[in-house]
């Protein structure tokens, strides 16, 4: 047996750096990563097959549970697909409410992420502060929708609950104070020397690589590529609400942090605009039970990037085929590229950089019995 010059360090499926299980196998030479192999599928639940089994209404519940943090992006996408298949137009007020809720979700997801990245860098104080402020948004959600995490506010044909004037006041106040805090976080993230040392220049992704490897979302925008589904392919009310697409030139972990914090500022502005220009009227129309044959592709900008839902109907009450591609899967090739050649200590920060949501990533069903046997797998 020879003397191995590289150590294989497994990251996952259980690891404190990963909030959800995936298996990354790093080959490490000293303190530098030389190779990465990947195994996913640990939270595979069989959703794509599950869609085919039940009606479109039932599929709404499945779509929501693809991911906890970006559940609104998934339900927005799903309802868009089904509504287009059925030929249903939702009322304008519903579109605006969906937009407000979607942007609130972006706020909640990005602030969760800032906390996580701070924690990965060892900066626990920022982590605690950000999550404390995030509670305000969770409370707002709970008041409007009845749930802190899974909101179930989107339904086929519109939204389930309307915005009351009391909630609107609370929302405005909440946005004001959250904006103050976000400005503070932007300042901290840009000026705290130890944090900068851990994130600046770490995990570089050039714009050419980002485009070639089809990265999406803040990961792509942090490398300077100005692409955002809300601007490029507007859906719900995004064609009527002005906003800036935030990019950064540096393409490192710091850029990804700054892009997300600045996107939070943009979201606050968008929510205010939507509240100011909220159309009146009904919030829901009644959809038919059956969708005529057809196929629809819907794109949404989830907090993590471009989300694709592709649905096909065969004229019955159940979908023929439903496909979901979540942003984390699209970012995996770019992630593997950025991981080569970095220090072991940078791995969690880079992993966190794409904002991994592995439960979004593995959706397909395997209801099986695992043997629990794990082996080294080559790519």
């Amino acid at each position: 047996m020879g003397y191995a010059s590289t150590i294989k360090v497994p990251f996952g499926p259980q690891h404190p750096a990963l909030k959800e299980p995936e298996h990354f196998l790093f080959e490490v030479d000293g303190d530098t990563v030389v190779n990465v192999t990947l195994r996913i599928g640990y939270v595979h639940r069989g959703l794509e097959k599950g869609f085919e089994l039940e009606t479109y209404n039932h599929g709404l519940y499945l779509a929501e549970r693809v991911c906890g943090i970006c559940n609104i992006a998934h339900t927005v996408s799903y309802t868009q697909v089904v509504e287009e298949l059925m030929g249903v137009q939702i009322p304008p007020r519903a579109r605006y409410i969906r937009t407000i809720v979607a942007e609130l979700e972006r706020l909640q997801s990005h602030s969760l992420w800032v906390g996580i990245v701070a924690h990965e860098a060892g900066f626990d104080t920022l982590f605690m502060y950000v999550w404390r402020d995030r509670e305000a948004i969770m409370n707002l959600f709970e008041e409007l929708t009845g749930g802190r995490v899974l909101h179930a506010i989107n339904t086929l044909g519109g939204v389930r609950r309307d915005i009351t004037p009391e909630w609107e006041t609370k929302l405005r106040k909440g946005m004001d104070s959250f904006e103050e805090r976000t400005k503070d976080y932007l300042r901290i993230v840009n000026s705290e020397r130890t944090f900068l040392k851990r994130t600046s220049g770490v995990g570089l992704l050039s714009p050419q690589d980002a485009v070639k490897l089809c990265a999406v979302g803040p990961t792509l925008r942090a490398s300077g590529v100005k692409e955002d589904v809300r601007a490029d392919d507007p859906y719900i009310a995004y064609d009527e609400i002005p906003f800036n697409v935030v990019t950064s030139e540096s393409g490192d972990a710091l850029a990804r942090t700054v892009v997300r914090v600045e996107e939070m500022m943009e979201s606050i502005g968008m929510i205010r605009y939507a509240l100011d220009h909220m159309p009146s009227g009904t919030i829901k129309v009644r959809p038919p039970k059956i969708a005529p044959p057809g196929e629809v592709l819907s794109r949404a900008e989830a907090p993590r990037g471009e989300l694709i839902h592709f649905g096909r109907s065969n004229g019955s009450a159940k979908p023929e085929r439903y496909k979901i591609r979540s942003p984390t899967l699209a970012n995996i090739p770019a992630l593997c590229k950025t991981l080569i050649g970095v220090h072991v200590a940078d791995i969690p920060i880079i992993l966190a950089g794409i904002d991994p949501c592995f439960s979004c990533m593995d959706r397909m069903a395997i209801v099986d019995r695992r043997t629990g046997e794990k082996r080294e797998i080559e790519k």
Partner: protein
Amino acid sequence: MIVYDLFFLLVFPGILFLLCLAFFTEWVDRKFFARIQNRYGPLYTGPSGILQPLADFVKLLSKEDIVPRAADRALFTLVPIFYVTLPLTALFIMPIMGETGLIAFEGDLIFLLFVFGLMTIIIFLAGWSSMSRFSIIGGVRSALQMLSFEIPLGIVLIGPAIAAKSLSISGIVQWQSANAAWGLWLQPIGFVVLLTCLLAELELIPFDIPEADTEIVAGWRTEFSGRKLAMFRLGRDLEVVLCAALAASLFLGGAQPLWLIPPAVVFLVKTIAVVLLFSFIRSLFARFRIDQVIAGMWKYVLPIAIVQIVLIELGVGV
């Protein structure tokens, strides 16, 4: 008298007192750290959670003690014991009751440096004997970190010794009290460097790379559980007390009588103040990477320490 000696050794300022002090400082640290982060910290066990560290210790004692199959059994079992006894022994040379420690001799400062070095070797052996990827990396990082702060630490500890013309901690405390001067304002650079190096020794943020939980689980402590982990936590608290007492004795005057206040109380106040300083710094920063620590220590901290010594040689701060 034997009875007195036994009392001093075992109760005050001996083992029992030191253990209580260790738990107390852990509580202080956790509470302060939590408060800065807008959290409660320990709350329920005892008034304001003061019994929480003791509760944690007792709970850990009762947990299952798993030894990994590949681990070196002998080392694996011995390491936690050494980790507790080394700081405990070193604490005897600290002046607590009065201006002289329980055990004081010329050169006990050097003995302390030796203990610090031993502790790092113990940590490395802890990681090594666990035979787990994460532990080995953690142990190696710890050793690397020691390589970087050991020399500045030694240099800056000699500073007060030169000023006091004594290599005994008790001697330095007596000199500070005799001259009504504290090392703090005589050698402020030395104090800052000492704090930095002590943070690295204790593996506190920003230097807690060896046990960075988000990267390598718990570093060199990963595989320990049950009683062994309890020993590690206790040893860590004792080490904190040791380092705080060291900073307090060498630079803040240590256990001097202050009007009618007994020296022990003064010592306590000063030590806790240093512990609070550690906690405060801990909450402010993110964690450095090991190569940044080594580079920073050798490029910045070491030259600053040398500047301090040069200043002393030139007569400043004596």
